[in-house]
């Protein structure tokens, strides 16, 4: 074995002069990570693993899925009922998408708290924001593909809201849908985006993101106007080598997340409702949970204003390291005000999401049944 390996190495090295390349890689792998790096710094690699798995399950689903208003629903039924482990495969894909969004949010929070976005890592953050946007579009386009009632009407409502912007709104909507209502052309567009365009964009952005992180190293806790610590300084402060120490931590988190994913997929298999029927809207249409805050917001403010807030929020995230937070402090203890503002914003988003979740439902709390109206306000009901 060893001999074959040696021969192969010699063959390639003779032609490509690999030795300097390997030496460079090795040096990069041994570069230490700062001493404050802990388990929270493994969230990014867990996302990368989930995305790898998502592409794997996606390709497998693609083998039996048939896009098209007449075929999509039936092909999903077939995947769930006939294809061996088809239901499990679909559940992995559906839960995988949810976990990616959850871990993406956690990763963003950790980068925010440790000020990882500050100079000189603004680009890493901005590429991260683009990754976040791409993942949301993944979720939005994927939601339609099963072509059941929830998929269909969720998309109707979500694409109707931007149409309230004067002039460009209706044109944009028609262009997105490929017609005046959600139908076969819409499914074709969303499908092409979901399985080809977005994966290509995502993988390119991810490669850039990961390259920048390895190239610049994880941020220290020093002020941005002080020079970053050298590898020797990091070692002296107790920083461990990236390989194998931090990589083992990454692997541990990744396996825990995979375990969570498989358990969820087995315990709570993905659901498929009735086939889409453009003539009947069912009760209880709600978008995916991560769009609920935006959806709920639309109920409190005029649509024209409401639909512009989510894109504005993405814009604010892009501008965060460039304009909004230019203080040189990195240590969380010296950034209590920034962290406070971040917590309030996150709290508001979560609150909107919870209101969205509970609105238009009936809940029994301590034996009293409440009806939560469209704005999420409770009304007691006489039993």
């Amino acid at each position, binding site marked *: 074995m060893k001999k074959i390996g040696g021969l192969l190495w010699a063959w390639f090295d003779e032609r490509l002069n690999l030795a300097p390349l390997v030496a460079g890689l090795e040096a990069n792998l041994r570069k230490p990570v700062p001493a404050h790096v802990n388990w929270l710094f493994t969230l990014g690699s867990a996302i990368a693993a989930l995305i790898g798995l998502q592409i794997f399950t996606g390709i497998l689903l693609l083998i039996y899925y048939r896009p098209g208003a007449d075929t999509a629903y039936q092909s999903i039924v077939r995947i769930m009922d006939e294809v061996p482990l088809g239901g499990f495969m679909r559940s992995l894909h559906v839960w995988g998408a949810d976990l990616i969004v959850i871990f993406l949010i956690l990763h963003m929070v950790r980068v925010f708290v440790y000020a990882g976005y500050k100079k000189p890592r603004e680009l890493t953050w901005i590429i991260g924001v683009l990754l976040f946007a791409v993942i949301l579009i993944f979720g939005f386009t994927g939601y339609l593909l099963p072509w059941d009632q929830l998929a269909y009407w969720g998309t109707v409502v979500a694409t*109707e809201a931007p149409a309230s912007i004067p002039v460009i709104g209706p044109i944009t909507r028609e262009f997105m849908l*490929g017609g005046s209502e959600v139908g076969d052309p819409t499914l074709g567009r969303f499908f092409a985006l979901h399985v080809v365009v977005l994966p290509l964009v995502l993988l390119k952005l991810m490669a850039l993101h990961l390259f920048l992180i390895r190239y610049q190293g994880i941020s220290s806790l020093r002020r941005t106007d002080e020079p970053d610590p050298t590898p020797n300084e990091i070692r002296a402060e107790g920083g461990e080598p990236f390989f194998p120490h931090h990589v083992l931590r990454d692997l541990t988190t990744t396996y825990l997340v995979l375990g969570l994913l498989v358990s969820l997929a087995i315990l709570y298999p993905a659901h498929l409702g009735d086939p889409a029927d453009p003539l009947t809207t069912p009760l209880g249409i709600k978008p995916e949970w991560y769009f609920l805050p935006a959806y709920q917001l639309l109920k409190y403010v005029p649509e024209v204003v409401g639909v512009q807030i989510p894109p504005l929020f993405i814009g604010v995230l892009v501008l965060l390291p460039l304009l909004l937070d230019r203080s040189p402090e990195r240590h969380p203890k010296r950034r209590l005000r920034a962290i406070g503002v971040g917590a309030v914003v996150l709290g508001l988003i979560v609150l909107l999401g919870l209101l969205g979740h509970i609105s238009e439902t009936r809940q029994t709390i301590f034996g009293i049944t409440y009806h939560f109206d469209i704005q999420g306000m409770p009304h007691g009901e006489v039993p």
Partner: protein
Amino acid sequence: MAESEPLSRRFFNALMGLGFVGTLCGFAGTALAYLWPMPDAVVTSEFLSTTRGKVTGAELGENEGVVGRSPMGKVLVVRKDGALRGVQATCTHLGCTVAWNGESGEIECPCHGARYALDGQVLKGPARDPLAQVEVREETEGLRILGPVS
């Protein structure tokens, strides 16, 4: 000749740049045309129809409603006190399909709870605009959609 050379090189570069931008625009334009929304499949039958075919008057009892397609888009037809009333079935709020609720005697939207009267007027938000009224005539072949109520 030697002096004009830098200039012509510049010109050449500009030409190349222009050509490149032109090529990009060509591709983009072609893609845009390809993606341009196509006209919806036209509903030619003037009779209200669902996936099961034409709706006949006999299928629609007193105080019942049915949603179908027509050349005017999705239309809700209700038989109330013997007479047929028609309105556009697409909720003016965010585009869900409304339905007739015989118990309350109102048109309801299942998405965010908007309610309309039989003449399309808004009774309860979040919808702000009324549903346009549609003229319907009962014929032996089915329910003929005549057009907007003038």
